[in-house]
């Protein structure tokens, strides 16, 4: 369990302000944000290597704000794995055991089980220098978990991996979390990782938390344009709202209910692309023209223009082929009023 209460850190050129985060026991929590948002700084404060200007950090209910790292009982895995290069795989994993011997007897989790789960048992005698990127990250995970820390901190553990190893480590992370029940705080800038792994997330921007909540909720209901953009709502328009109608350019878009705000956002996958002059019963359907089609493999990005508004939609590649959509195709752009989210750009 991690409680961060009103944490402030003042550095030359950067300020972290009033951070409050509660990670419940056994939860997998992700801290999301672009580069330079202050994510790593929060991890550093949790590890105990930078002095905090204000606020408190509690781990499992114990105040650790002033404690040195070795007395915090945390495990940490970095993007660059930070394995001890002069030790073998086994020595790396067993490194912390001598300092946490007593805890080990209690729960009975042992390194054998851990290395078994992570599929690195056979590597025990090997030097860590000759491992693949994925193996290195698994060893780093085993090392962090071997001491059975109260919490596990992950600093973009997947970012530096080749795509083929990334999925493997991601899968193992999820399984490990389920099987050990350890509390995890993961820092990343990739929202899909949060989807896959976490229940709740917080979005950090320029030293402030913009939104906290369940991953799917943040994904579906961002509170402001920054979060909306960050979670991939590519259709974000300044709008004038009057009751349940939003005016965007010369378009009038229906909302599910009256709301106040100055922006609307629509997920690109919520936009349906229908044949020209057809409709499927929704209030919001506009004739438009495809301005660009970009393939991304399985799915395609469609840019469309309806009068003076540019929409972006994501469609499975096979649908694009089936409907023969290409630059210049005339289409109907449709979306449900429930999929139109109202945001405020100023809090």
């Amino acid at each position, binding site marked *: 369990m991690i409680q961060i209460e009103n944490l402030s850190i003042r550095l030359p050129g950067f300020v972290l302000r009033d951070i409050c985060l509660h990670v419940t026991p056994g939860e997998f929590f992700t801290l999301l944000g672009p580069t330079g948002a202050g994510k790593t700084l929060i991890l550093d404060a949790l*590890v*105990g*290597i930078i002095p905090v200007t204000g606020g408190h950090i509690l781990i499992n209910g114990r105040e650790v704000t002033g404690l*040195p*790292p*070795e007395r*915090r*009982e*945390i*495990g*940490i895995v*970095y993007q*660059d794995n*930070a394995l*001890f*290069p*002069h030790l073998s795989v086994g020595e790396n994993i067993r*490194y*912390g055991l*001598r*300092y*946490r011997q007593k805890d080990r007897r209690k729960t009975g989790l042992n390194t054998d089980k851990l290395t078994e789960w992570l599929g690195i048992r056979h590597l025990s005698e090997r030097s860590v220098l000759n491992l693949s990127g994925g193996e290195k990250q698994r060893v780093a995970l085993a*090392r*962090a978990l071997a*001491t059975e*820390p109260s919490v596990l901190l992950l600093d973009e553990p997947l970012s530096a991996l080749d795509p083929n190893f990334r999925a493997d480590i991601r899968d193992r992370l999820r399984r490990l979390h389920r099987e050990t029940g350890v509390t995890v705080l993961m820092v990343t800038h990739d929202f899909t990782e949060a989807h896959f792994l976490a229940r709740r997330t917080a979005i950090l921007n320029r030293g402030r938390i913009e939104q906290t909540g369940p991953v799917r909720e943040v994904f579906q209901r961002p509170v402001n344009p920054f979060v909306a953009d960050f979670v991939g709502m590519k259709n974000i328009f300044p709008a004038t709202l009057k009751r349940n109608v939003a005016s965007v350019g010369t378009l009038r878009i229906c909302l599910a209910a009256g709301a106040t705000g100055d922006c609307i956002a629509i997920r690109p996958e919520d936009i349906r692309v229908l044949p020209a002059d057809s409709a499927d019963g929704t209030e919001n359907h506009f004739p438009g023209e495809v301005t660009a089609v970009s393939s991304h493999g399985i799915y395609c990005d469609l840019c469309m223009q309806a009068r003076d508004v540019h929409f972006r939609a994501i469609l499975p590649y096979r649908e694009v082929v089936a409907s023969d959509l290409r630059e210049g195709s005339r289409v109907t752009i449709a979306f449900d009023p429930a999929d139109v989210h109202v945001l405020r750009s100023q809090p």
Partner: protein
Amino acid sequence: MLWLTVSCSALIIAFILLPLTEMVLQPSLADLGETLRDRDVRRAIQLSIGTSGMAALIAFVFGTPFAYLLARKQFPGKKFLEGVVDLPIMIPHPIIGIAMLGIAGRNHWLGRLLCDAGIRIMGSVTGIVLVLTFVGLPFYINTVRAGFEAVPTRLEIVSRSLGASPAATFFRITFPLAWRSMVVGMIMCMARAVSEFGAVVIVAYHPMIAPVMIYERFTAYGLKYSQPVAVWLILVCLILFLLLRHFSA
């Protein structure tokens, strides 16, 4: 461009090697053998190696924590300390000797303190070691500092997060990863120390270290008697350093 580079490099290599090889090749084997049978020569070379080794050891003991501090911590006045570390390189050698004698005499409180403790600086092995440590320290500290800087701080953070104290972290992580730089630093420190003459000749003419003996023989007997000593000293040093480098590689 390449041609210029190569010829400049060749010039430098020749400039360094030519005088030395000429000198090494001049003495006959008979001269070399006779010189080695001279007890004074053997004693001087032993003393040179011993005192500079001692200097390297002192640099290791006291310099390692300092190098660590410089590598890891940021603090006001750090630039100044870095300057102080380099100071012994730029202080003219006779001045080093004079300055050491200045505080070693009975006229200085420190000298009286040392004297009362039975420690003599002038004309003693202690004095030689002190002077050699002075000139060798920058080489040790700068080398080891770079060695510590090459150990990622993250490794130390991870070690501490796993429960190791700062001391345990140093001995289990930092030291094993930086010890090579310490060996190299000690070699550099020793190399610098074994070459010192000007500061030592002021602090201790006797007991005679090899460079002082070489100087004495050169000025008193001429080239013929100083060269073999020089050759032996160079050979002993080269072998020693090659062994150490090999051992640490």
